[in-house]
């Protein structure tokens, strides 16, 4: 398989870019307890974006793993999860804010710490949203790759420590042309007192065409219908 692109995200690093449909995006955690927060927007109409509620309720799940798809608010599949060494990725705990980061790990500034100052998901996402001609109003619940947050019967939310070990991998397959935004910042519910220092690599490959026997297409009938909506969209566009 032809590797198109590769990048290592330092702790705290952010990135955004356009990624066309039909690519594998392969992520690997280079340390324990990684958390990579991800947002996705339709490149042609950024008001269509990853929708946590529609994704979870359609698949009757509160977590994400292989076979699941990441849906937009327009009933289409932005990306599929085609490989997963962990069995659980989070989408209910969001990204870290500046306030939380300062409270938890101690206040840091560029003036004092230089480029080692502690970045947060909120600022990383805001910057990348503005870079892509959006803004903070376009912030929505993200996907937190590598993190497990489970909910007890009383509704309480719990971050599972040591869920992600160094070497853990997850691979997305893009199903739409999208703006892909990444923030390598801690999970807000990670109780660690130390700012997690976990690099993550991202590699992009060309994926083979999706057919009707595909695992993610057939994972649930809901997924199949969301793929139909996606194929309709591109058939009508003619791309």
């Amino acid at each position, binding site marked *: 398989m032809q590797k198109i692109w590769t990048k290592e995200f330092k702790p705290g690093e952010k990135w955004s870019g356009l990624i066309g449909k039909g690519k594998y995006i392969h992520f690997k955690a280079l340390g324990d307890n990684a958390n990579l927060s991800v947002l996705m927007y339709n490149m042609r109409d*950024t*008001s269509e974006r990853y*929708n*946590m*509620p*529609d994704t*979870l*309720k*359609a698949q*009757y*799940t*509160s*977590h994400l793993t292989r076979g699941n798809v990441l*849906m937009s*608010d*327009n*009933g*289409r599949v932005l990306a599929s999860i085609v490989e997963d060494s962990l069995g*659980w990725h989070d989408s*209910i*705990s*969001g990204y870290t*804010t500046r*306030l*939380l980061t300062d409270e938890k790990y101690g206040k840091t500034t560029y003036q004092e710490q230089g480029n080692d100052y502690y970045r947060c998901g*909120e600022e990383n996402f805001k910057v990348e949203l503005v870079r892509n001609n*959006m*803004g*903070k*109003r*376009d*912030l*929505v*619940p993200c996907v937190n790759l590598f993190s497990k947050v*489970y*909910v*007890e*019967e*009383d*509704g*309480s*939310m719990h971050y599972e420590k040591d869920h992600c070990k160094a070497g853990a991998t997850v691979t997305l397959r893009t199903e739409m042309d999208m703006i892909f935004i990444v923030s390598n910042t801690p999970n*807000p*519910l990670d109780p660690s007192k130390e700012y997690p220092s976990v690099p993550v690599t991202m590699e992009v490959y060309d994926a083979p065409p999706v057919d009707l026997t595909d695992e993610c297409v057939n994972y649930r009938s*809901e997924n199949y*219908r*969301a793929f*139909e*909506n996606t194929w309709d969209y591109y058939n009508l566009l003619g791309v």
Partner: protein
Amino acid sequence: MYGFVEKESDLRIEDAVYDEVLDAGLGWMHELKPGQSFRILDMEGNQAVDTTFYDMTNPEDHYGAVQTVTMQGNIYLTTGSILRAESGKPLLEITADKTGRHDTLGGACSSQSNTVRYAREKRYMHNCRDSFMLQLADSDVDIRKRDLAPNINFFMNVPVTKEGGLKFDDGVSAPGKYVEMKALEHVMVLISNCPQLNNPCNAYHPTPVRLLIWD
């Protein structure tokens, strides 16, 4: 039921400055001033009320579903819950609650999600997102489709399991039950009184709710 802080309101209906009935299938958009109390009353029981908020001092700061649940460490809302904006800013506080179960993860139904969840032929059915968008179309406030972030569903029961499951269950609400919240900021409330007929969120029979405001 777990983590339910049941509390009655001491506000009297005759003192309300606003008191209207909203039929199922209709939207509603209304401002609250800081200190005003807002009650949603489930008139016939098990009616999901899709609700979101905007900070009127900065309408780009919409209700933040994950900020609200993550900062309280619990996905369910009840008396004492702070409803936060995406920035984390507290917008409202729930001051009375008679059901103890309000969904924060299920979002609003739409034509598109109906095609995914049920069947392509369900696209024509009325849905919450259309009610939201009709309200936005007729509003002078600069709130648009991109500002429709995940919302709260008052009275809707969406249990989540420790194993990572999620389902839509019969509601735990009943005729006359209500939830009441106090505005901490100048906020815009946007509601769709849910017309969904394909799952038990409205007991397959969408019904009116009563909306009341006190100074």
